């Protein structure tokens, strides 16, 4: 007996109806802990060879729900649409406040999008946000709904003293997708590249994640991002030179710089979206908040490549073209660099309190 060959060659994810970004909004909490302060506590180091400068820490009254609400409100300010026209409010995160009870329904209620909407929480390590974006492209692109919202947001935790503690940070972004003709940036297409790769995980009831020895770099981050980006550019007939800007998932400063250079992008092309040095790795928020910083300064006609990465593992690539509607909407809400400039430095003790690292009972 022969098995029929049903495998088809990969194709770009292109909606039937053209889709674009109608509004976008970022959020970064106020507090920062410098990486050298973490090094002081755990290694006694004065701060050489650290993966970033500092990371954003949420306040005692913040979580993925409150942070998503603020990013969603910023996206609404730029989109200028009626929230009851949103047919999806999807939140991608690995730090949803509840194990069971959606983040998305609270966010949808707070922005006035209830009750005629889809509401779900997405999980795919650091690419949960872009996964939600592709899903919203499906809702809008099929004509099932005029608008949908996708959020990537995290309050990531690293085990005290672990390499991840230097970078695991808080922040993210919200996107409202809608018809291309109303968009400040059109999403030409997306492409997803996914394999079973054991580079990083967190088991149920565990507070901190584990990472899988040598799987972190080449077989996970670099493999998935380069495969997704390379296919996206080949299938779109583009090269790195066709893009004004690029943004990649950014777990530290070095990885996105290296993957950019492997793909032929210059440091100038990734500079505005490379936020990890000053806010840390915002996990599901990392690539998407990088894109908000680019959109804040983009000009009509700029083409942008965004590639996320989520452990476990996979990458979503997006080919984005900025329209002339961008200029009027950039200033309608708080810009990403304004959030980054709002900064209060804290020491390790305050950080340990804010992040619930001190056992109280």
């Amino acid at each position, binding site marked *: 007996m022969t098995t029929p060959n049903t495998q088809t060659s990969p194709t770009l994810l292109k909606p039937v109806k053209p889709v674009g970004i109608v509004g976008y909004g970022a959020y970064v909490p106020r507090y920062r802990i410098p990486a050298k302060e973490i090094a002081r506590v755990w290694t006694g180091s004065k701060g050489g060879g650290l993966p970033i400068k500092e990371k954003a820490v949420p306040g005692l009254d913040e979580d993925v729900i409150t942070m998503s609400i*603020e990013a969603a409100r910023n996206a609404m300010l730029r989109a200028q649409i009626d929230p009851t026209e949103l047919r999806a409010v999807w939140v991608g995160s690995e730090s949803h406040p509840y194990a069971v009870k959606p983040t998305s329904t609270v966010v949808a209620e707070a922005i006035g999008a209830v009750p005629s909407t889809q509401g779900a929480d997405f999980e795919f390590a650091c690419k949960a946000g872009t996964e939600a974006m592709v899903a919203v492209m499906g809702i809008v692109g099929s004509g099932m709904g005029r608008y949908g919202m996708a959020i990537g947001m995290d309050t990531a935790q690293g085990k005290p003293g672990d390499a991840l503690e230097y970078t695991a940070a808080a922040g993210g972004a919200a996107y409202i997708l809608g018809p291309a003709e109303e968009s400040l940036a059109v999403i030409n297409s997306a492409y997803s590249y996914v394999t079973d790769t054991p580079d990083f995980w967190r088991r149920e009831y565990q507070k901190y994640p584990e990472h899988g020895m040598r799987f972190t770099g080449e077989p996970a981050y670099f493999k998935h991002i380069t495969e997704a980006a390379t296919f996206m550019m080949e299938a779109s007939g583009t090269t790195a030179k066709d893009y004004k800007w690029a943004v990649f998932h950014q777990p530290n400063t070095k990885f996105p710089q290296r993957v950019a250079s492997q793909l032929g992008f210059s440091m100038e092309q990734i500079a505005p979206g490379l936020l990890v040095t000053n806010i840390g790795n915002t996990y599901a928020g990392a690539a998407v908040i990088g894109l908000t910083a680019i959109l804040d300064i983009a000009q009509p006609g700029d083409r942008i490549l965004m590639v996320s990465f989520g452990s476990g593992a996979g990458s979503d690539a997006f080919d984005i073209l900025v329209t002339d509607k961008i200029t009027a909407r950039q200033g309608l809400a708080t810009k990403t660099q304004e959030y980054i400039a709002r900064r209060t430095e804290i020491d390790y003790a305050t950080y340990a309190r804010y992040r619930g690292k001190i056992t109280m009972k």
Partner: protein
Amino acid sequence: MEIPRHWRLKKQRYGLVGEVCPHCDHKIFPPRDVCPNCGDEAKEQFAFSGKGEVYSYTTVYEAPAGFDANAPYTVAIVKLEEGPMLTAQLTDLGEQPISIGMPVEMVTRKMRNDGDERGVIVYGYKFRPAPLHTTA
């Protein structure tokens, strides 16, 4: 456990949704269905802008049960741009000094757990120094 109360108040707590009097245009918060200005029925919903200023404030060091994890924190009487005054916590102060007349804006934040960490998380309005952003 006060789950029904949290559920009933979610609109006003998450989004600062009050009422406007259809007879005298008085803005009402919290919603009470009767206009305190003219005494007529007022059930029309009104979403406040969230902009206001500190009318008075104090810092709480000995917090009531459920709020102790956040102490010390500052509570203010905030006068909303549209008129009503309400009591709320201030947040995101960093090292910023507080003063009477200081402009503030509403944010939705985690207030407390209903009961312990097994209970529902209660979200509601707080105010932070404003403006974070001036419209360009």
